[in-house]
């Protein structure tokens, strides 16, 4: 049964009582919370996700609760815990859903060490995957949302998971995280871009999420073969766009910076990253508007898939 198949009140009760087990990348997390922010956020953003039958066999127990009785009443806060550990400081309660998303990213990046975990978005078309790797603020998520809107399958907005055994990219298909101006840019793409409630005043400014398309969620078990890596850089003044090839050695070095567990995995990470770069054509793209860069990527995909 999918999240959307539950009557809302029944879903909210389940969330508060036994918890809701959902796929989170390579793991199953059992999420529980009494907070309406979390219930509403999950019903909107995770509508197409399968609710696993057995809440007891999850990999992690996630809770979002006020840190204390006092904090339920005075300047209410929310605390994210994973199996009883709280990796972050509590946040104001209206940031509960973004906190869940950041927390789930943390769950994957600090435990999925049977994968090389890279900070980057992954999209797929015709069986070939594109990785967007960039520092925060480069416009990676906006470009990711634009490509999803253009029909690319979403594997992940935030975390590229490279299977250490076969080099394939493992889908996460969780919501796309949008910040500040990018929220309106993505909304303007059209009504199909399902952007949820905006949360103002977080550590990253205004934050909203875009719901992953049903088809991407339905194909969550299908890994993809990497074909392209793009280092995107949005800069308002950059017209016309500049797209240039990047040498493999340079790409390798740049990607080590974006890895979460490169040092931890040692030789295995080196092998996986070298294998990844070897399979890909690598480009750097500087652009001032989504409309400039989307056709370039579409053309790239079309040419090489022929």
């Amino acid at each position: 049964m999918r999240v959307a198949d539950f009557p809302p009140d029944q879903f909210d009760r389940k969330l508060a009582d036994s918890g809701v087990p959902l796929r989170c990348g390579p793991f199953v997390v059992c999420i529980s919370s009494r907070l309406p922010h979390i219930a509403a956020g999950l019903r909107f953003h995770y509508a197409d996700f399968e609710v696993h039958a057995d809440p007891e066999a999850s990999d992690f127990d996630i809770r979002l609760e006020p840190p204390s009785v006092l904090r339920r009443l005075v300047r209410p806060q929310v605390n994210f815990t994973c199996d009883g550990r709280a990796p972050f400081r509590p946040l104001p309660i209206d940031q509960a859903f973004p906190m869940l998303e950041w927390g789930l990213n943390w769950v994957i990046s600090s435990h999925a060490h049977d994968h090389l975990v890279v900070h980057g978005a992954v999209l797929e078309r015709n069986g070939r995957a594109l990785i967007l790797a960039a520092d925060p603020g480069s416009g990676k998520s906006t470009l990711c949302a634009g490509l999803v809107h253009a029909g690319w399958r979403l594997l992940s907005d935030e975390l590229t998971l490279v299977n250490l055994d076969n080099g394939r990219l493992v889908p996460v298909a969780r919501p796309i995280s949008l910040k500040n101006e990018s929220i309106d840019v993505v909304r303007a793409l059209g009504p199909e871009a399902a952007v949820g409630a905006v949360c103002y005043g977080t550590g990253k400014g205004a934050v909203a999420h875009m719901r992953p398309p049903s088809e991407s969620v339905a194909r969550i078990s299908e890994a993809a073969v990497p074909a392209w890596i793009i280092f995107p850089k949005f800069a308002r003044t950059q017209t016309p766009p500049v797209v240039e090839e990047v040498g493999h050695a340079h790409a390798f070095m740049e990607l080590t910076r974006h890895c979460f567990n490169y040092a931890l995995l040692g030789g295995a990470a080196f092998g996986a990253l070298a294998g990844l770069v070897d399979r890909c054509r690598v480009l750097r793209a500087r652009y001032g508007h989504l409309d400039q860069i989307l056709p370039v990527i579409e053309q790239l995909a079309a040419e090489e898939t022929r």
Partner: protein
Amino acid sequence: MSLIASRLLADTLTDPKRSAEYSPARWSQLIKQARAADLLGQLRARLATANRLDAASPAARRHLDIAWELSLRHRAAVRWEAIHVRDALADLGVPVVLLKGSAYCIADSPAAIGRVFNDVDILVPRRALDAAEVRLIRAGWLPARVNDYDQRYYRNWMHELPPMEHKSRGTVLDVHHTIVPPTSGIVPDAASLIDHARPVADPELKGLSVLAPEDMVIHSACHLFLGEFHKGLRDLFDLHVLFEDFGPRSGFWERLVSRSIEAGLARPVLDAMQQARRLFNTRIDVNAQALLEVRAGHPALPGVREWLFDQVLRPDHPLCRSAATGTARWLAYARSHWLRMPLPLLVYHLGYKATKGGAH
């Protein structure tokens, strides 16, 4: 078979064969508890030795294998750091003794198997402390940025310098000059600990040493039973493995008793024996325990102590918590401070922490 949730991890570590009957849900609980207690890798090692790995659910097996790979990487990293520390201090010509987890790793102790390490701890002679600090800074370990109060807290009252972090590798180094805070009123002879330290056999690690077996146990026991019980079950499991490893060696128990008494640390060593036996069925020498019982005397409120140890030596996981666990953890925190400093200093310290906040 007992199915007390809070004992699931300890019971499985003690007797891995019982896992044959676990359902996937129980495996999931076990993994979550082991992760919370930082004992996943050790659990993997125990199950492997008992030939029980194949009985694990696929999800559990995956987490166990990840933890195992991680522990191997940690081991290599600790060796690497230890070599750099040694080289940085080489020209001082003083002994460099590794402590706790890093010592288990460097000495190839069974306590290092599957374990992960959060930092490297070393002991140097007090007289060489300042010179050692300067050389370590030069080699890239920068003192953690702490405020003036914390600087004073460490330098005047504690048994170690503020933690140092390597500027490029991010590894954390704790430099000790003795094994318990001098303010506790217990003053073990640090020079004697260093004199009795054993050079590491591995030729690549020449120049480093670890405490003698009995001193290693005493230090581990002090760290746990005079401390705050953060990662309490992991530390007790370390002690269990050390007891099992050193126990059969000739003269170990006699030396452990005499060294504990000499250092004024009979009580924490006795606590370690009793609690390891309670949770891991550790083989403890009966005479040694009896001798320490006589010397340690009767503790105040024995019932409360037992209750406190039972609470704080559980994995820090919701499945293991009772309504009283929060209170117990707070009491353990208060107790560790009570044991560490005289009352006027304690009032001053906790007063400062209550008004200004801080990490200790």
